[in-house]
Each structure stands twice: as structure tokens, then as C-alpha cells.
């Protein structure tokens, strides 16, 4: 109690000390930034998960080739999860003498758990959105099926042994995806009718999909329980797995947020280190005095540790409080794309890194010099002694570096980020050493006299001890600004590349060979720029170097490409957005070679020279892997795992596929297209594209807002740290004025001095930023590095200007008040 009272008493008085305010401000900034970003990233994650419902027809899917165990359903129900079932299989449809293979989805009554099924009553009728599947005895069929089977809505169709009435035309179901491309026409039916058809026999190829929806904790609890029980054929699918394009967008944004957060923390840590050392130096006399009062070392230690602890508490509490409105503002910016109303639930888990930041920041950066205070000899009150060394370079720097690495690692959970930032810091340190050395040389040669330049340089020499730490802090800020700016720019560019305004939003699938010229003509006539038309042959990979794939690839069940037919194509040239990773492209005339996509090749362990065998229909085809290529999966163009040279697949039945951008105003064309080409499937992914556009747009806004926030915080910290020499400068200014220095000279030399500091710091900062960005681009954002010459010019100038303004502001009281008053009032 007494101790608390004392701490409170001292704490209130400490508040008058600039160093204490700077330290607290720095902790506040660090905690608020980490907490805001933590909360925002958490919400982003959850929003994406929630938005998954619109892409997956539920929050999660469990896919397998066998039915899910009965009791799992009970468990999921106990947890409060909602469930819907679906069985997917291929079957022949009969109508009179016509027959057609179709891809059938039989859905339970709860389907879809999220999103809507779009249907039409007639091929050209208006669309209706329904929150359920077909009733028993009814079929909803792909528009393509009508001409193929020569039927109309209302007619009967036979599936296996059961007869159904075609009740509507299926336009789109919420879980329709690109992986369904090229499948036979789709049919939706009721799950209860499946038994009657007798289609599913032991050994038939059937996919079982179980849909689950519920709250996050419910879902993750179920998943935790499920994880160890999953059969090899079963996969738990969230938005990440189901919609890589969306999740990659978010991932990038998250990385950027973490980078920003890490940099802000770094900044705050340096401020804390500088301020706490100033504090410790200022406390030297106080500690000696306390010793004359009879305080033991242990008590002195307790007093200061108590203060550190109270700063931690105040900094954390204040930072968290500050984070809430900031998070709210950020989330407001990003809110529009979250259509599922999100509860403003505060996830405490997202906050603990912030608290850890405060503790680590204060105890790793501020503790060492403060702990050494108790060694101050009491005799110091009677005579100024050399004093104690408050800084132990080796232990302090080691501790600081360790803490920094640990914090960023904990926070960003990304070693490359840590490495890149440390690399940038190392570059900065190196430059600072060089600058320090150069300055020492330069300043030692400055002679006497009164020119502006000379006064500025003399000023720098007078403050040379504070100078380097100021250049360091400003340099670090400039590094932060530079890095964030560069990464942000490349982030926005990559998003733009990924989704240009005219990204293809319609896929045409199943184009018969003889329809290709007509489709081309249709697109040309309507000024629709289509990507290349690719032929597509469906085949299954069966052997690698003569051995069955399932023997060669240990986790064959995990490799999705092996569990389904692959879309094989042929191409003459490497598409512009593909890159050759290994091997070489084929020469014209060669037909027995094949090119494999990089990630698939990695999973299968394929390299150029390996021989692969495909089964296409009933025939086998063997070819040698000639090249491995990377594919831009984010482009909304048709992409293929496996490509052959022209002619290799000439003997197999092929259909063509393409994608194009359809402006919203021209959407009516779709109906005309459907009428003209009834057998071609139009896969409309406009809603998906729009969604990603939305997400990118909103996240971009949030990222920009965050950038501004971090920069403002950084500026605050810089000004705070710069204030370290404020009293000294003001006293000097006053002194110079009493000695008769002209105002103008004083102003000009001070401006020059600060501008020089700023320019040096800007230069060091931009160099360090390039270093960090080089590492970041290389590993984290997978872009290519280039020099940013503009920044080399802009940043030093900006930094010089900024510093000049700060310097001018510091000088203000010196110029306006009488020197006498100043000498008296300044400490």
C-alpha cells in the first residue's frame, strides 16, 4: 500500500519529465499500432471466412469419396453446426431415344446453407434466386441439356431407374467453381431421390460433400475434433482452399499490415531506447540524492522497477484504448465488402501481442540503463564524478536485438520479414557508422568564424553526441516511410495486375471444334476481347516412368490432380503469363513431349526427362516431360496443369475453352449467346470478380489509412526524440543572442543544421529501405526488385524539409522572448 502510494506520488511528478512522456508515448504508439492491426487482421480473416459462405454454399465443406461417418453428424449437431449434404456423380440422362452424360448434384433439403441457387423457368426468362434445391421428383438442369436431349422445361427425364420432371433451368449454384469446368452439363436433384435411381453402386465414382455452417468457435472446435479422424480421401475446405484468388489477396494485405506493424514497433522501440537512456542520465543526480536520503540499492531498484511496471500498465492500457476507435475506423473503411453482418466481437487473442510488445519494449530497452542507476556513487552529490556507465554496449545491444527479433517474429510469424527488416537495419547501421566517421572528420576541420554554414557545422559539432542518435532515429523513420511506401506501391500494382479493370469474367466451356470459328466471330462482332481459345482433352495421369502413380507418389490421395481427370491442352508457344522454370520449350514438329505446371511437378516429383502416361477415354498416351512452367493462377484466363505440343492430341475428342471480359452494360448478350450456342456452357464469374475487386478496393483504403496512421505516429515519435536537445539548444540560442548574434543568422544556421541532419538521415533511410524492400520483394511479395531512383531524391529532400521545420519550431521561443527570461526559465 505504502509502496503504491509512493509510486503514485512519484509517478505524478515524473510526468513533468520529457523523457517519461516520450517513453510513454512510444509505448502507446507501439501498443496501439500492434493492437489495431491485430484486431483488423483478425476481422479481415473472419470476414473472409464468413464471405466464404457465398462461394462455398456454406462456411466449410468436407469433401470425400466415401460418405461421412454417421456419428460425425451427431457431433457437429451437438456443437451447434448446421449441416447439409450433397452427393455428386456422373450419370446418363435419357429422354425418349436421346441420351447425354450429365454431372449430377443431389442435394439435401438444407442446401444451400449460404448463398442462393439461380434458376430460370424458360431459357430466356428472368432469373429467380432460391434458397433451396429441387423438391423430390424434380430436376433443375443446365440450359445445354434442353437441346441435347430435345426437351423443354416440364418434360420428363430418366436418371438411372427413376423418372423426373424438369422443373427449371439451372443457371448457377453457390458452390459452382472453375474446377467444374468442362464437366458434362450440370443437373441438380433432391438427395432423397438418389436411392431410387440406383445409380450409385459399390465402386461408382462418387463425391460426397458435407456442408457445415456455424460460428467461428463452433467450426474450429469441430475441425479440431475432426482433424485426427479424417480419412485420407477427405478434405476440410474453407475459403482459403476453396477460393485461392480471394485468400491470396487477403494474405498479401495481411503481410503488408504486419510489415507496417513491425516497422511501427521498431520505430517505437528505438524511441523507447533513446528516451529511457536520457531518462537514466537525468536520474543520475536524483539517485545520488536518494542515497543521501538513506535509500538502499534494493529500494532504489524497486522504485525504478515499479515505475517501469506502471509505464507498462499505462502504456498498454492507453494503447489498447486508443486501438479500439482506430480499429473501428479501419473496419468502417473495409466494411462495405463484408456483406455478412459481422458482430463487432473483440477477439482478445488478437490483443495479446500488443501487451507483450509493451512489456518487451520497456523491459528489454528501458530496463538496462535504469537498473544500472543504483550503482551511482553517493559521493556524486558532493562532486561531479565520472559517474557510472549506464550503457553496456554489448549486453544491451544483444538484448535489444534479441527482443526485437523475438517481437517481430512473434508478431509477423514470418522469418523473412524479420530477416528483411534486420537487413535494412544492418544497412542503416553501416551507413550511420560511415556518416559518423565522415562527420567527425569534417567537423574537426571547421574553423572559427561566423558564416551560416560554419555556424551550422559548429552547431553540429556542439551536439555531436546527440547528433548520431538523432540521425539514427530520423533515418529509421525514413527507412520506415520508404519501405512502407515501396511495398504499398508494389502491392497495389500486383493487385492491379492480378485484376485489371477488364479481367475476364465469363468463361465459355465445352465449345465443340466446329463451333470455334462461330464463337470467335460472335465475340469479334460484339467487340469482346477474348483470351486465346484453348483446346481441352480430359485425361487421367496414370503412370510415371512406367510405374503406377499411386506407387510413385506417396501421398497420392492428397494430390487433388490425381483424384480427378485433368484438362489437357496443346499449345504452340508458351503463353505470355507462363514462365519456363526448368527444361526447354518444344521445337515445331515434336509431338511426344509435355509441359507440366510447376506446383504439380513438385508434388509429383517430376523433372524434364521423366516419362508420363495418361489415359484418355480408353487409350493410353505416353510423353516425355520437356519443361516445367509456372502459371499465373490469379489471371482469370484458362490455365492448364499439362500442355502438349500441337498435334499430340489430334486423335482425341477435344472441346475448346476461353474467357473474356463482358462489360456490365452488355450482359444481355449472354442470353443471345445462350440461344445461339445452346450446347456451350457459360460460366459467369462476374460476381466473384466483383467481389475480389470490392475486397481489394476496401483493403486498399484500409492499407492507405493505416499507412497514414503509422506515419503520423512515426512523426510524433521523431519530434519527441528530437526534443532531447531542445533545452540545450534554446539555452545556446539565448546565449548567442545575448552575445549579439543576429536573428537572421541564428535562424539560417539552425535551419541549415537541421536540414543537413535531415538530408543525411533521409539518405541513410532510403538506402536501408531499398535493402529491406529488396529482401521483402524477393521472398515475401514475390515481385522483382528494381531501384527506385525517385525515392532517392524525394526522401532526403522531404526529410531535410521536415527537419528544418522542426528546427525552426524549436527555435521559436528563443527568438520571441528576451534572452534574460530564457536563461532564467530554461533548465
Amino acid at each position, binding site marked *: 500500500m*505504502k509502496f503504491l*502510494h*509512493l509510486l503514485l*506520488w*512519484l509517478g505524478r*511528478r*515524473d510526468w*513533468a*519529465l520529457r523523457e517519461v512522456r516520450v517513453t510513454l508515448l512510444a509505448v502507446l504508439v507501439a501498443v496501439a499500432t500492434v493492437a489495431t492491426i491485430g484486431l483488423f487482421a483478425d476481422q479481415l480473416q473472419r470476414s473472409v471466412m464468413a464471405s466464404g459462405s457465398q462461394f462455398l454454399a456454406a462456411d466449410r465443406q468436407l469433401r470425400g469419396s466415401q460418405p461421412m461417418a454417421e456419428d460425425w453428424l451427431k457431433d457437429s449437431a451437438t456443437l451447434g453446426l448446421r449441416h447439409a449434404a450433397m452427393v455428386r456423380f456422373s450419370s446418363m440422362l435419357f429422354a425418349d431415344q436421346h441420351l447425354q452424360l450429365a454431372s449430377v448434384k443431389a442435394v439435401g433439403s438444407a442446401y444451400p446453407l449460404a448463398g442462393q441457387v439461380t434458376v430460370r423457368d424458360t431459357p430466356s426468362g428472368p432469373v429467380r434466386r432460391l434458397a433451396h434445391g429441387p423438391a423430390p421428383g424434380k430436376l433443375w438442369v443446365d440450359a445445354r441439356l434442353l437441346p441435347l436431349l430435345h426437351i423443354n422445361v416440364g418434360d420428363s427425364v430418366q436418371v438411372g431407374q427413376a423418372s423426373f420432371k424438369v422443373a427449371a433451368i439451372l443457371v448457377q449454384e453457390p458452390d459452382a467453381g472453375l474446377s467444374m469446368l468442362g464437366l458434362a452439363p450440370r443437373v441438380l436433384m433432391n438427395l432423397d431421390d438418389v436411392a431410387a435411381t440406383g445409380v450409385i453402386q459399390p465402386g461408382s465414382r462418387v463425391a460426397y460433400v458435407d456442408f457445415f455452417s456455424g460460428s467461428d468457435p463452433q467450426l474450429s472446435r469441430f475441425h479440431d475434433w475432426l482433424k485426427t479422424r479424417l480419412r485420407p480421401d477427405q478434405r476440410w475446405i474453407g475459403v482459403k482452399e476453396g477460393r485461392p484468388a480471394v485468400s491470396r489477396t487477403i494474405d498479401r494485405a495481411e503481410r503488408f499490415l504486419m510489415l507496417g506493424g513491425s516497422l511501427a514497433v521498431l520505430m517505437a522501440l528505438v524511441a523507447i531506447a533513446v528516451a529511457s537512456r536520457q531518462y537514466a542520465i537525468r536520474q543520475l*543526480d*536524483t539517485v545520488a*540524492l*536518494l*542515497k*543521501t*536520503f*538513506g*535509500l*538502499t*540499492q*534494493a529500494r532504489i531498484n524497486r522504485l525504478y522497477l515499479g515505475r517501469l511496471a506502471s509505464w507498462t500498465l499505462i502504456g498498454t492500457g492507453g494503447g489498447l484504448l486508443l486501438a479500439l476507435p482506430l480499429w473501428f475506423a479501419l473496419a468502417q473503411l473495409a466494411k462495405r465488402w463484408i456483406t455478412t453482418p459481422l458482430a463487432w466481437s473483440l477477439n482478445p487473442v488478437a490483443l495479446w501481442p500488443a501487451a507483450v510488445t509493451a512489456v518487451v519494449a520497456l523491459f528489454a530497452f528501458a530496463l538496462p540503463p535504469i537498473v544500472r542507476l543504483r550503482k551511482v*556513487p*553517493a*559521493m556524486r*552529490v*558532493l*562532486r561531479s564524478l565520472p559517474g557510472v556507465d549506464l550503457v553496456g554496449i554489448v549486453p544491451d545491444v544483444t538484448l535489444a536485438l534479441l527482443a526485437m527479433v523475438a517481437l517481430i517474429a512473434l508478431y509477423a510469424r514470418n522469418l523473412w520479414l524479420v530477416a528483411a527488416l534486420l537487413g535494412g537495419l544492418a544497412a542503416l547501421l553501416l551507413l550511420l557508422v560511415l556518416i559518423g566517421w565522415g562527420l567527425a572528420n569534417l567537423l574537426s576541420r571547421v574553423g572559427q568564424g561566423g558564416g551560416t554554414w560554419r555556424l551550422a557545422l559548429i552547431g553540429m559539432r556542439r551536439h555531436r553526441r546527440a547528433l548520431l542518435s538523432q540521425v539514427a532515429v530520423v533515418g529509421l523513420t525514413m527507412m520506415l516511410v520508404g519501405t512502407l511506401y515501396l511495398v504499398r506501391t508494389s502491392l497495389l500494382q500486383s493487385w492491379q495486375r492480378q485484376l485489371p479493370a477488364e479481367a475476364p469474367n465469363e468463361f465459355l466451356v465445352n465449345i465443340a471444334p466446329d463451333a470455334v470459328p462461330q464463337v470467335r466471330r460472335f465475340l469479334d462482332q460484339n467487340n469482346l476481347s477474348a483470351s486465346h481459345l484453348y483446346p481441352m482433352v480430359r485425361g487421367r495421369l496414370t503412370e510415371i516412368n512406367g510405374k503406377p502413380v499411386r506407387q510413385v507418389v506417396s501421398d497420392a490421395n492428397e494430390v487433388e490432380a490425381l483424384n480427378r481427370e485433368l484438362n489437357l491442352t496443346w499449345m504452340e508457344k508458351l503463353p505470355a503469363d507462363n514462365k519456363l522454370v526448368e527444361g526447354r520449350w518444344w521445337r515445331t514438329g515434336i509431338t511426344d513431349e509435355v509441359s507440366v505446371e510447376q506446383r504439380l511437378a513438385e508434388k509429383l516429383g517430376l523433372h524434364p526427362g521423366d516419362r508420363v502416361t495418361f489415359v484418355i477415354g480408353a487409350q493410353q498416351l505416353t510423353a516425355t516431360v520437356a519443361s516445367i512452367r509456372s502459371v499465373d493462377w490469379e489471371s482469370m484466363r484458362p490455365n492448364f496443369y499439362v500442355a502438349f505440343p500441337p498435334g499430340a492430341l489430334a486423335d482425341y475428342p477435344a472441346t475448346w475453352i476461353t474467357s473474356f471480359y463482358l462489360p456490365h452494360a452488355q450482359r444481355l448478350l449472354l442470353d443471345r449467346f445462350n440461344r445461339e450456342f445452346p450446347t456451350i456452357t457459360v460460366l459467369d464469374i462476374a460476381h466473384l470478380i466483383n467481389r475480389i475487386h470490392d475486397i481489394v478496393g476496401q483493403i486498399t483504403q484500409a492499407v492507405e489509412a493505416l499507412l497514414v496512421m503509422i506515419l503520423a505516429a512515426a512523426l510524433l515519435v521523431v519530434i519527441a526524440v528530437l526534443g532531447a536537445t531542445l533545452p540545450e539548444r534554446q539555452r545556446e540560442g539565448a546565449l548567442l543572442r545575448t552575445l549579439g548574434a543576429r536573428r537572421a543568422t541564428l535562424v539560417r544556421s539552425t535551419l541549415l543544421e537541421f536540414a543537413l541532419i535531415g538530408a543525411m538521415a533521409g539518405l541513410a533511410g532510403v538506402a536501408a529501405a531499398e535493402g529491406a524492400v529488396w529482401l521483402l520483394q524477393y521472398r515475401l511479395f514475390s515481385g522483382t526488385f528494381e531501384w527506385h531512383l525517385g525515392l532517392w531524391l524525394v526522401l532526403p529532400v522531404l526529410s531535410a524539409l521536415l527537419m528544418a521545420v522542426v528546427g525552426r519550431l524549436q527555435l521559436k521561443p528563443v527568438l520571441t522572448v528576451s534572452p534574460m527570461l530564457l536563461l*532564467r*526559465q*530554461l*533548465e
Partner: protein
Amino acid sequence: MNERYSDTPDGALLQASELTHQVVVEQHTLTILQGVNLEIKAGESVAIVGRSGSGKTTLLGLLAGLDVPSEGTVILAGSELTRLSEDERATLRSRYVGFVFQSFQLLPALTALENVQLPLELRGDKDAEKRARQLLERVGLGDRLSHRPRQLSGGEQQRVAIARAFASDPRILFADEPTGNLDTETGAEIVELLMTLNREEGTTLVLVTHDTQLAARCSRQLRMEAGRLGAVPVEVSA
């Protein structure tokens, strides 16, 4: 005077014998004090005078237990300082000792009142503020309570420092050139104040000074000369 001061066997509150202090500066051993003996009785006021550099401040630091001598012993209020650890010496100081410095040593961030309050708060005194207020009134600064040191003149600052020194009710007060930074008249006021408190509180005074006026007001004067205490102290009767 009263039994409060009779706890040392021979009536001496402070006793130093054969004090020698040496420091090593760049491989040379510098002897600052050599064979200093002295005895100060409770209630006395003793002035240590001498040329600059003769070792007065060093001696004061050793007597107060702020530093330890190379050789010799110091006994303060019955405890042999030279045998105690730094913390034990600190505890002893907290009970018996007060200080006044040439450069005042007020904390610039605290007001006059808070500066006086500080030692009281540190020892957990419940009436810290009230007592600090009384002390400041007593040194004539009752109307300057909320002023910070830099808003006070040197003499006022020293009065705050004296109030602070007396806040802990010390049995012995050490002062190193308490008037050194003050003009003669202000110095005289400070001397007057110290003497009054010495009389009224019965506090023993040990002060180092160049100020002959101040020295003359003390009951005894000791002269330091090149690290030795003058064999025959110059007695100037007051």
C-alpha cells in the same frame, strides 16, 4: 542537553580516527587525506575550513558515510561506518543524517513543496505534505510552495534545501559550502537560518566553508591543510 544525545560511550556523536584516503589517478596514488582524527559532540556546530583542494569535501563525504576511507575508522552514532556495507550505511543515514549542498541539489521537476516532501514520502510519512508545508513556512517560503526551483533565487533554493534537510529530523547535518553560490548578504541569512535550527532542534552541524563569517559563528573550527587536519585548530571565539 537531553538523553537523546547520550548514546555514544564518550558522548561523541561522530568520531574519526586515523582517516587516510587515497585515490589512484593514472597509476599515481594520490593521498587526499592523511591521518585525520576528530571528534564531534552532539549539539556542536563545527566548521571545516581550508584552502581549495585541501580535502574538505572528501572528509565530509567520509564522515557522512557517502564514501569509505582507505584506512581508519569513522563511528557515527555508535556504529562503525567503516565496517558497514553501502546499504547499511544508507539505512544509518536515513536515521541520523541530513545534507545541504553548495549546488542545492533540488529536483527541477518538483515544486518547492514537493522537494521538501520527497524524503518524507520516501519514508512513508502520512503527514508528509503538512509537515513539508510547515518546514517551508519556517524557512520563510510559505508563499512559494508551488514554485519550481528555477523560478526561485539561489538563496531561496538553498532555503528549500535546508527545509528538506530538516524534514527527516536529522541528528547531524552535513553542509558542503552551503553559502558558496550565494552573495554575502544572502549567505548571512542562510547562516542565520542554519544556526537557528541548530539551536532550536539541537541538531549537530558539520559544515565546510570558505566563509569566515559563517565559520566564526560555529562553536569550533577545524582547518584542513593538504589532507591533514590542523594539529592546533585555530580557535576563534565566537
